[in-house]
């Protein structure tokens, strides 16, 4: 099956240094910006709209449409915030993009600024990615030096600055309004919408937030034209997608695909070398940990938003997590609930308390203390805690915990029933037996205290 390379077509090898400005320019880099500077800003937005590129951060909102929401002539400055927080378990594509083709993102940011009338972009990179930050900072030095970013972009007289802003460890800062709160120097608390950020975002000014990969598509769209862009993908998912495949596969990694012609099965079997150790497949979470899990027989679908949705899940942020036949789904769900409980920002009671309940209930079942009633309760709690759409919570984090929970119970209830009947998850029992055997001295008296010398 053909690999469809566009964003990563000229990307250096994974461990090689990031692509230089010279190399980027030699392969058509900054041609899109050059063209955009000669266009009316609205015409750039129109092109992005017609290209039909949808947000790659998870929600899949059409980028051109979002840009068109920016109000005109408010007298306020306008900002672009690039979401490079990438904290969704199973996702690592934005990191690859920033560390291998940093100029592609910078060009995309400058072009988006031009389209929406912004004079500054902030790239919010998660704190755990200093290598990505270094690649971007180095590229920005080159770009400023050559007048591609700064006071007078390509001699057009138009000014545009791009700043890299480092996060400090919090999943919720990937939620777009949490990101804004964090960028303003606060805790990463999501904000009630409306007002939408396009109208009232950073410092109460109109702000567009887009994912790294979304913005990286902009230079390609303008440089090659709408038709060329739409020649890959389908009406529903235009352009390529970067997908990370991880978990129980032989060769975890990233691949750029034509979503219309690549199935989830091919992602696993062709691109990732198949399920590891010759084992059978049990389950796949296709779009990052927040989307419903799919059973092994539901993965013969192309990786488009529409097809994955029809199969019962979401293509989301393009992080395919693979689980083999030995996986205990109770253990996997417990792990995810620890994650969501830990990452809940705590503003909304259903989320703060609810994710805690989910974690507690799965843990009870995991450790052999659960009953059939706890399985029912788990299902019921999941039904009551989400609901950002209905205004019950400020953001979608609680819903992100609900989707795995409901789908794990739907497709893998047997694992839960078995854990209740057998005195816990096999993972729990193996740990308990090992602990009984090994000395626990190291874990009791001898730990150094934080701060002790």
């Amino acid at each position, binding site marked *: 099956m053909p690999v469809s390379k566009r964003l990563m077509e000229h990307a250096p090898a994974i461990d090689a240094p990031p692509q230089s400005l010279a190399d980027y320019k030699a392969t058509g880099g900054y041609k899109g910006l050059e063209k955009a500077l000669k266009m009316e800003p609205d015409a750039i937005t129109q092109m992005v709209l017609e290209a039909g590129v949808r947000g790659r951060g998870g929600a899949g909102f059409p980028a051109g449409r979002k840009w068109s929401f920016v109000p005109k002539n408010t007298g306020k400055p306008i900002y672009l915030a690039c979401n490079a927080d990438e904290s969704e378990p199973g996702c690592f594509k934005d990191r690859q993009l920033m560390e291998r083709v940093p100029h592609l993102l910078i060009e995309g940011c400058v072009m988006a600024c031009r389209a929406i009338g912004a004079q500054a972009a902030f790239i919010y990179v998660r704190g*755990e990615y200093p290598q990505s930050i270094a690649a971007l900072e180095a590229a920005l030095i080159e770009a400023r030096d050559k007048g591609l970013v700064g006071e007078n972009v390509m001699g057009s007289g138009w000014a545009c600055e791009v700043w890299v802003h480092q996060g400090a460890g919090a999943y919720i800062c990937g939620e777009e309004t949490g990101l804004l709160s964090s960028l303003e120097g606060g805790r990463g608390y999501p904000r009630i919408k409306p007002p939408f950020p396009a109208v009232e975002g950073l410092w109460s000014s109109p702000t567009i937030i887009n994912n790294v990969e979304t913005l990286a598509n902009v230079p390609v769209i303008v440089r090659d034209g709408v038709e060329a862009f739409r020649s890959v993908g389908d009406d529903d998912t235009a352009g390529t997608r970067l997908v990370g495949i991880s978990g129980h596969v032989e060769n975890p990694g990233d691949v750029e695909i034509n979503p219309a012609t690549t199935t989830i099965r091919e992602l696993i079997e062709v691109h990732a070398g198949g399920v590891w150790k010759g084992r059978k497949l049990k389950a796949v979470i296709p779009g990052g940990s927040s989307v419903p899990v799919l059973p092994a027989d539901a993965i013969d679908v192309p990786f488009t938003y529409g097809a994955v949705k029809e199969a019962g899940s979401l293509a989301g942020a393009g992080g395919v997590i693979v689980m083999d036949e030995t996986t205990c789904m109770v253990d996997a769900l417990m792990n995810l609930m620890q994650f969501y409980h*830990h990452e809940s920002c705590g503003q909304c009671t259903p989320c703060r308390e609810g994710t805690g309940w989910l974690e507690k209930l799965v843990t009870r079942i995991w450790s052999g203390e659960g009953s059939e009633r706890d399985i029912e309760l788990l299902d019921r709690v999941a039904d009551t805690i989400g609901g950002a759409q209905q205004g019950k919570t400020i953001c979608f984090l609680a819903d992100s915990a609900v989707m795995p929970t409901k789908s794990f119970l739907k497709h893998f209830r047997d694992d839960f029933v078995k854990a209740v009947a057998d005195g816990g998850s096999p993972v729990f029992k193996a740990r308990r037996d090992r602990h009984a055997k090994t000395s626990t001295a190291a874990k009791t008296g001898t730990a*150094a205290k934080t701060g002790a010398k």
Partner: protein
Amino acid sequence: MSAPATRTPPTAEEIAAADGRATFDDLRPHLDTLVARYPARGAALLPVLWHVQRSRGWITPNSVAETAAYLEIPKAHVEGVITFYTMFQDAPAGREVVMVCKTLTCRLRGAQDVIDALEDHYGIHMGDVTADGKFKIEAAECLGLCDMAPCMLVVDKARYGDLTPESAVKSLEERS
């Protein structure tokens, strides 16, 4: 699923040692360039805290007061931000901070064994500082390195992937 870290408040000597590594006036020139990027002074809080932490090792009580005064924001706000983000250290954090991923992909590929091995080798719980003061080792949520699972990173410096219990211990032992 490790036991919680044991914590004692920093001693006066530890605080003095950290503050002694750089005066706030030493930091000011760089901080001024950070503040200049934002339309509001307070927005520089995260970058300022990063610079203070890198310079002093951890964010001491004086650092909190100095940062608040410098950015013209309440001290309570600075405290709130430090405790909200996992990567800000408000107590001595060893010479290097190690984050070991515990989330799903890493767990599927053996993260728990890696964590157990590090706890046993250093005789600590996740979240503690090793007895020799070299590392603070903590269990972390997904590091965005799932292609390298199981993995860990040494904050600001290095990342290690495809870990085994042995290679995890060896990787840290080789950092002097």
